[in-house]
């Protein structure tokens, strides 16, 4: 009986496995094979086998290592900010107030905006001549002259991060809000009767309840931010002076600008490995949540 059930399930899963294998598995295998060759964009059909030399060179390439640092810093700052901001907003939106449903509806807007549109929008907001941000800060007296936000080496990366946080914190908010709505009101009431203050209720009841959901959001957002490409490509193209060049931008430049598909594939495979490790954490987080 169990064998029949297994067969039936296997049969039902087969189309999905075949499609996933075709659109993800096969290209991944091809990319790995490519990473072992000296293939370039014009010579995809007759490349020479070079073993693991692309990988060893990648580990010595200062530009690539710098770009990994940019990706790591981007992921760290963006994800932490989104977690704090997203959770705070979720807590606010869980409280009853007039127009709550409308505000909850608004929350989805930034997340629904396509990344490239968001990037273009923030380019305009950051414009050093007529950007809204400069205008606002200048009128508030916070800055005494307009600032080049994405054209200055020490501000560019953080400016791009801010644009990304604005777009994606609402995803964390929505996940946290969904979790908050499953929190039994009786627990909060009991704690209140026992004399717990607001912080203690959050620290010992709400937060532990939120953690499994936030873990999932955390890993999902880390995966997304580690492979960040589009928002940087549109806003700065990796400049100024490569200060915003993420690992994905580096891979793109190596493969398509420098036409070195072999080493570009090696850099990409290293990134895939990093992301696979993060996915393992994600799956672990999910299983923890289910248990």
């Amino acid at each position, binding site marked *: 009986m169990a064998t029949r059930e297994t067969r039936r399930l296997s049969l039902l899963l087969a189309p999905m496995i075949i499609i996933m294998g075709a659109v993800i598995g096969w290209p991944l295998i091809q990319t790995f094979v490519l990473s072992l060759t000296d293939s370039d964009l014009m010579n995809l059909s007759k490349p020479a086998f070079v073993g693991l030399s692309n990988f060893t060179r990648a580990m010595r390439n200062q530009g690539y290592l710098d770009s990994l640092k940019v990706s790591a810093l981007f992921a760290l700052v963006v994800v932490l900010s989104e977690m704090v901001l997203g959770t705070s907003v979720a807590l606010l939106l869980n409280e009853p107030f007039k127009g709550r449903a409308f505000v909850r509806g608004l929350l989805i807007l930034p997340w629904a905006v396509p990344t490239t549109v968001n990037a273009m929008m923030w380019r305009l907001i950051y414009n050093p001549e007529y950007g809204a941000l400069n205008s606002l800060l200048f009128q508030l007296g916070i800055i005494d002259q307009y600032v080049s936000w994405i054209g*200055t*080496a020490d501000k560019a990366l953080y400016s791009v991060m801010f644009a990304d946080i604005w777009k994606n914190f609402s995803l964390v908010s929505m996940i946290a809000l969904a979790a908050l709505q499953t929190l039994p009101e009786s627990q909060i009431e009991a704690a209140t009767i026992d004399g717990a203050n607001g912080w203690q209720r959050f620290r010992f009841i709400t937060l532990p309840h939120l953690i499994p959901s936030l873990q999932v959001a955390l890993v999902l957002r880390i995966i997304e931010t580690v492979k960040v490409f589009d928002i940087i490509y549109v806003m700065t193209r990796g400049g100024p002076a490569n200060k915003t060049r993420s690992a994905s931008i580096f891979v793109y430049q190596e493969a*398509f600008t420098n036409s070195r598909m072999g080493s570009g594939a090696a850099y990409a495979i290293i990134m895939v490995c990093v992301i696979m490790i993060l996915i393992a954490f994600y799956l672990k987080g999910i299983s923890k949540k289910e248990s």
Partner: protein
Amino acid sequence: MVNEDEEAGSDSTHFYTEVKMYEKTHRAWYKDNFNLDGSDYTLDTTNASTSNVLDIPRRNHMKKGVVFLLCLVCLLPLFSGGKKEAVAAGTVELRFLGMAQASYSEQNVNDMTADFMRDHPNITVYTEFVPYEDLRNKTLLAYGSNNSYDAVLVDDIWYTEYDTKGMLRDITAEVPQEYRDGVLQGGWNFVTKGGRVVGMPWFLDAMYLFYNKSMLAKAGYHAPPASIEEMVDMGRTLKARGIVQYPFVFSLAQAEALICVYANFLEAYGGSFQDDAGNYILDTSGVKALELLVNLKNEGLLNPNSLEYLEEDVRRVFSTADAAFTLNWAYMDALASDPAESILTADEVGIMVMPGVRGIKEHAAMSGSMGLSVLNKSKYPAEALEYILYLSSKPVQDKHSDLQLPVWTASYDDPKIRAGHEDLADAAKLAFSIMNVRPSVPDYQEVSSVFQEYIQMALYGAKTPQQALSEAVQKVKGM
């Protein structure tokens, strides 16, 4: 009389009974009707159970699903082949990749293409446009993945790379004599590789110095600068008198535009990227040019936002009278005094070839020309050539000369073409006779990326100009 609760209870009991019946029987139904032990699943219609009413909608759903899938499978070829079948038999389809830019604009090229297709009803041309920064990569990727365009727009710095990779069709024998005689010699220089003509010059361009005449007049200058030194002095005076906060604005974002601007100053100082043997020598010949740019920034003469600006950005800054000097391509000439685009009038905008450094050069210009080429993987090379010859023909170029000067020598003496562009036409004549080119090497794009990064480091003050260029040259040598 049955009350509502009882009725509801009766309904739910009935439903529960049906569900249990279904659970009990559906396994038996599968067992009876499917050959589960065989290699595949076959329906045994003779034993099909019809006793349970719940099986009927289920089977209906299955049937609907199968019918839907079959319809989908049947429709798929229609979607994939729709475009091809829409084209009449005997029609040649060409794909052209151009650049989204101000001139020739997408509208210009589409108008030219529509005229071409009207004259050639057997040819259909599909045009695509991408920003300059993506043009080369898209061309290479399409070519490498065997989905090549038939004709493409090529920057002069890419000709060597494309030719080395065997991408460009040799059209030496097919270029009509009238083109050979009529097109400016400067155009043939960059589309000719090893004696073979591999493209048609489409527009010749250089970065020109645009200056605000009224600002200069307010500061007491009634003639444009005759040297770099004079230009910098003018900038200092304009700033000191409060006429403009930042007299200079240049496109110095991390992009090819930065190299174009730097190359003009390099040329003004008599320097070059490479020596005669092809070795990069910017660490010796290019330091003064970079020092000048860094000093302009440190003195507060250069708009600090320049480091994130591309050509369109500097055009807007100049057009709002927030700069006295800028470098830009010819397209800006018309737009800088267009009321829809600028607050300046034609009398306020001056254009000239950038002056050189006193005692070294009178003028400096760097080529930014582009050509049209037929790619070797084109299935219809004859038609593609016909198309690019049409786009670069004198009547077509004269017709669209409001933003871009033609490549035809005769056009520069045509009063109709010159009308309104006299200064530009004169500057162009001079620029085309003296302009130099950026390195013509197969790996130019990678070399350029390295120089962009290090020149920006110097402009930010992270490295001295000497350090930045020395390290850049070392990095390029190690590639």
